[in-house]
């Protein structure tokens, strides 16, 4: 067991959790304004691909992250336009967006790089690894926390920032109100549509970051459908965390830990199915205890899913 729960397990948890966490925060903002964003998977994929494209043409990490954010935002705006403006069913738009992202990225992989399956180029620069000055000298903690990409640290900061934004600022309260009861919010003169667009925009930015971490963080490459369900896991993390930034962070950590543990167990040739299953079982069990909040019911009414 000593080998199982060593330092690198926790370090890889932190690495694996970042894309999920960033996307889940985006999903949480969307859920808070009454849009249930199933398209997270597609948005991350777009982000991951455009980060590689940006990296290939500019050779600069910062520029490629900006490019990834721009592309993801463009797509999330499409999501927003369809679901807010045209009042299309959010779930349907999300599903279509996932397919569009998968098709477009694989297609562009062929069109731009003329390769199939995966693109890798040794000239590309990955995200730098940051060593945190003081913490890196602490024996155990230093190995776990230090030496990650800036996006890992950014995601932790974003959790706190988002929490403060949602619950301590006026704009945050307006955002919550827009999701909690759009009609009441409208009667107070809050521009619900504008707030929804704002939320979708933020979600796009976060998914762009998530994608960049995915394709530039651990490995510097892009493979077809490299999100492999992470967007849906992020969606589940959003729900388990009750769309509350801190809660979302905690549930993302759980999922990331399970992910890292599964990879580790594979190394020991042990069945990984149940460890991978656990997050979903936990989420279902958690749904029993945390009853739906008002904004979720509004979201549900809007997407006519259940009743």
């Amino acid at each position: 067991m000593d080998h199982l729960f060593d330092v690198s397990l926790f370090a890889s948890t932190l690495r694996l959790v970042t894309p999920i966490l960033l996307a889940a925060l985006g999903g949480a903002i969307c859920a808070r304004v009454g849009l249930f964003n199933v398209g997270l998977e597609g948005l991350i994929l777009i982000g991951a691909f455009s980060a590689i494209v940006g990296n290939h043409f500019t050779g600069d990490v910062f520029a490629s992250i900006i490019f990834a954010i721009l592309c993801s935002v463009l797509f999330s705006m499409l999501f927003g336009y369809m679901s807010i403006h045209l009042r299309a069913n959010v779930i349907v738009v999300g599903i279509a967006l996932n397919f569009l992202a998968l098709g477009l990225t694989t297609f562009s992989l062929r069109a731009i790089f003329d390769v199939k399956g995966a693109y890798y180029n040794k000239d590309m620069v990955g995200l730098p690894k940051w060593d945190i000055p003081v913490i890196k000298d602490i024996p155990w903690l230093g190995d776990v926390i230090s030496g990650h990409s800036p996006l890992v640290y950014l995601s932790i900061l974003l959790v706190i920032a988002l929490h403060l934004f949602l619950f301590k600022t006026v704009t945050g309260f307006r955002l919550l109100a827009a999701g909690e009861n759009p009609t009441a919010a409208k009667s107070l003169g809050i521009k619900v549509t504008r707030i929804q667009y704002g939320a979708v925009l933020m979600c796009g930015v976060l998914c762009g970051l998530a994608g960049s971490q995915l394709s530039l963080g651990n490995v510097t490459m892009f493979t077809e459908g490299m999100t492999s369900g992470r967007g849906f896991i992020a969606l589940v993390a959003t729900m388990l965390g009750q769309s509350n930034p801190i809660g979302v962070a905690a549930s993302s950590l759980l999922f990331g830990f399970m992910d890292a543990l599964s990879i580790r167990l594979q190394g020991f040739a042990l069945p990984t199915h149940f460890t991978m299953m656990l997050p979903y079982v936990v989420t279902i069990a958690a749904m029993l205890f945390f009853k739906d909040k008002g904004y979720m019911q509004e979201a549900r009414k809007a997407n006519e899913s259940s009743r």
Partner: protein
Amino acid sequence: MDKLVSFIRSMVQPLLAVIVGLAAGAIAIAVVGGSVPETYAEMWKGAFGSFYFFTNTLSRATPIILIGLGVALAFRAGFFNLGSEGQMVLGALSAALTAIYLPGPAWLKLIAALIAGIISGGIWSAFAGWLDAKYRMNLLITTLLLNYIATLFAGYIVSYPLKDRTGSAAMAQTMMIDKSVWLPKLFKGMSLHYGFIIAAVCAVLLFLFMRYTVKGYEIRMLGGNPLFASYGGVQRGKMMLLSMFVSGGFAGLAGSIEVLGTQYRYLDGALTTPGYAWSGIMATLLAGSHPLGTAIAAILLAALQTGGMGMERNTEVPLEVSNIIQAVLILFVSAKITYSFIKRRKAARS
């Protein structure tokens, strides 16, 4: 005359969506430097060009039709069943295991396998319905979560306890089903099997059921206006369990037919990788939950996929063009659903 007009009107939007989708595909083809008419001609040939390709398309459409029908039924009742994938996988697994391990004559095994598939898919789906009816857990989310649990569970079963250890291939799969239990092929040397007939019959039956039976009317009423339905004496919880069971049963049947007619074993990932479940949901959306329309839309989507493969064989244009066409198609069709949704909302308010 009125009927004709409303029929034409209902066809306009899907046709428009198809045209927009093809236009998006044309742009993509032009971007990679292919000739648009030539590529579409290859695509057509790959899907319908010869009898062989045509039957190939139909056999790919078979699971999509069945899943689409299940989703359509749930959708009509007002429930968004995103769990077809898990239901299909469990159906496929139990059909494979029944066909392998049940003693008895071949015809009994075949029928038992199909029934086992339907029941296990149905129970998995009804479980989500039960969670919603009893604990008010959002059906959309539970069905999505149960997908993962089902596929991982099936993956575990075929990688450890019931893994095929006879062959040399170290794949996560069950043993091969005995040849006598296979669903017979419709034509010699073609991939099309009797499953397609089952799917087609199911589409017609579902259409008749929804249209002419009391239960069908109750289901439509529940989806159209839940308050009115409960006022009319429809028990929502019971109806939910029933419609979710049938909906999952269709998905389970899709999985078992795919196993008994094409794969002849449960191979981990063989049903999830082609994305049958999502295609089925898309077919339903495309047809606005009309059973016969769903079947046609499923064939259309299957044709896009097989056509895309043909296109890739013969031209330089990559297969993913058909994915782009599919996605754009759905994106535009969703505007139609919006329209009917607004109508429904108005009805609910007044």
